[in-house]
């Protein structure tokens, strides 16, 4: 029973070890180098932002804001395409290296086999019939020679299967980077809006002096300029609802020395009067 348990454990351990060796790209020569390179490329790419938070810029109207953001998106789109091309070159390079190495090994083994066949024709002919298969177009497409043994084809298929898995891993890292671009772009713009909104001191604004001559010029604070420009226009064509117009008592207008009224107390509606008709 103890031996059986030990054997099972050993088998499970070997199975896990094989699986890790097969699928843990970081442990494999070429894949690890190019995987790390891809990761670095994706970390660089995720620093891109498709929004311009407009720091150190003048206040913009809505059209300029939209146009500038459009330009920013266009640049980011071009940058993402450039990153994708660089990443593609990297993966192609990885595949080429793995295939070249495998091709070299298979070609040298076939050459060695041919050599053996020459030296020992009887023994060699037996094995060749067992192992070799007629040339296959798919292998030739990848630049592999004719006359590969089952073992060679199995090695090639193993690497090809690995490429398909590697492609998924590459896409996983790329997608993570793309999603970070989105999340951080949106987050930064929202933070920028919030930051500008929070620096507004309403008490100061409600009590500030508008007289240019009296106003203390505020020191320039680059980066805190409002982001959006709005214009306020007077639309006096709009009627004021009657219930909002309140009547107030109007005092007599009597200037000093006879009274206490000031120039600004003169009310055109109340104090301009006509004499009754005689």
């Amino acid at each position, binding site marked *: 029973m103890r031996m059986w348990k030990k054997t099972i454990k050993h088998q499970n351990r070997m199975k896990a070890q094989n699986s890790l060796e097969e699928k843990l790209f970081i442990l494999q020569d070429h894949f690890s180098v190019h995987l790390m390179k891809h990761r670095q490329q994706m970390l660089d790419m995720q620093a891109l932002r498709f929004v311009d938070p407009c720091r150190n810029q003048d206040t913009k109207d809505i059209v300029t804001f939209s146009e500038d953001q459009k330009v920013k998106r266009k640049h980011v789109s071009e940058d993402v395409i450039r990153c994708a091309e660089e990443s593609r070159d990297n993966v192609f390079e990885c595949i080429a290296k793995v295939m070249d190495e495998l091709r070299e090994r298979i070609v040298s083994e076939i050459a060695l086999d041919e050599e053996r066949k020459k030296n020992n024709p009887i023994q060699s002919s037996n094995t060749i019939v067992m192992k070799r298969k007629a040339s296959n177009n798919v292998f030739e497409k990848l630049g592999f020679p004719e006359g590969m043994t089952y073992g060679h084809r199995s090695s090639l298929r193993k690497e090809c299967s690995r490429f398909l898995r590697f492609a998924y891993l590459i*896409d996983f890292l790329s997608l993570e980077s793309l999603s970070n671009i989105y999340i951080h772009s949106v987050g930064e713009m929202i933070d920028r809006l919030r930051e500008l909104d929070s620096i507004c001191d309403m008490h100061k*604004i409600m009590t500030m002096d508008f007289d240019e001559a009296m106003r203390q010029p505020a020191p320039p604070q680059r980066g805190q300029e409002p982001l959006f420009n709005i214009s306020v226009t007077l639309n006096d064509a709009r009627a004021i609802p009657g219930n909002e117009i309140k009547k107030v008592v109007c005092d007599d207008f009597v200037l000093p020395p006879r009274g206490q009224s000031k120039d600004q107390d003169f009310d055109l509606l109340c104090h301009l009067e006509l004499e009754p008709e005689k």
Partner: protein
Amino acid sequence: MPNISDHWLQMTPSSKDYINSVVICFQEGLDSITNFKRWSKHADLAPYADVLEEWDDIVGDVWEEHDEENLNPFSWINENRIYLEQKEMVRDIVEGAFDKVKRFLTRFQPLLEIYWRNKQVDLSILVHERLRNPVESLSSTVKLFQFYHSLFNSNLPSMTEIGLL
């Protein structure tokens, strides 16, 4: 008239215009990054997939070329709070900023009331033959308008910064 500024002062563009403008940036931003060519199930890998036999280990079980040539991060972000609540977040901030502007505009209430009163007056009364105390009335009117001129000049800023706006 406590709410005259609400009736007569119009802000352009509106808060909705700015909210839409920002949200469109986010939507089109997603499109702008959806141009990263995929690797998985891409035609470039077809020669390698063709080599495999049916009993070989194929990730995703069946190898078929994907309809979309580019990666789309939508499935990665569609449950993120930033994606789900972005419009509400932008709306809260921008509408809050517009509310501050509205509050600021109440400062012009006295000026608008003066303007409204002046609009109600028929100034031809100044040249009417039956105008009571014509000399004093004309003089007071001129002085009043001079006062208004100075008041409007010193209380109407050409531009004010209110945080975001």
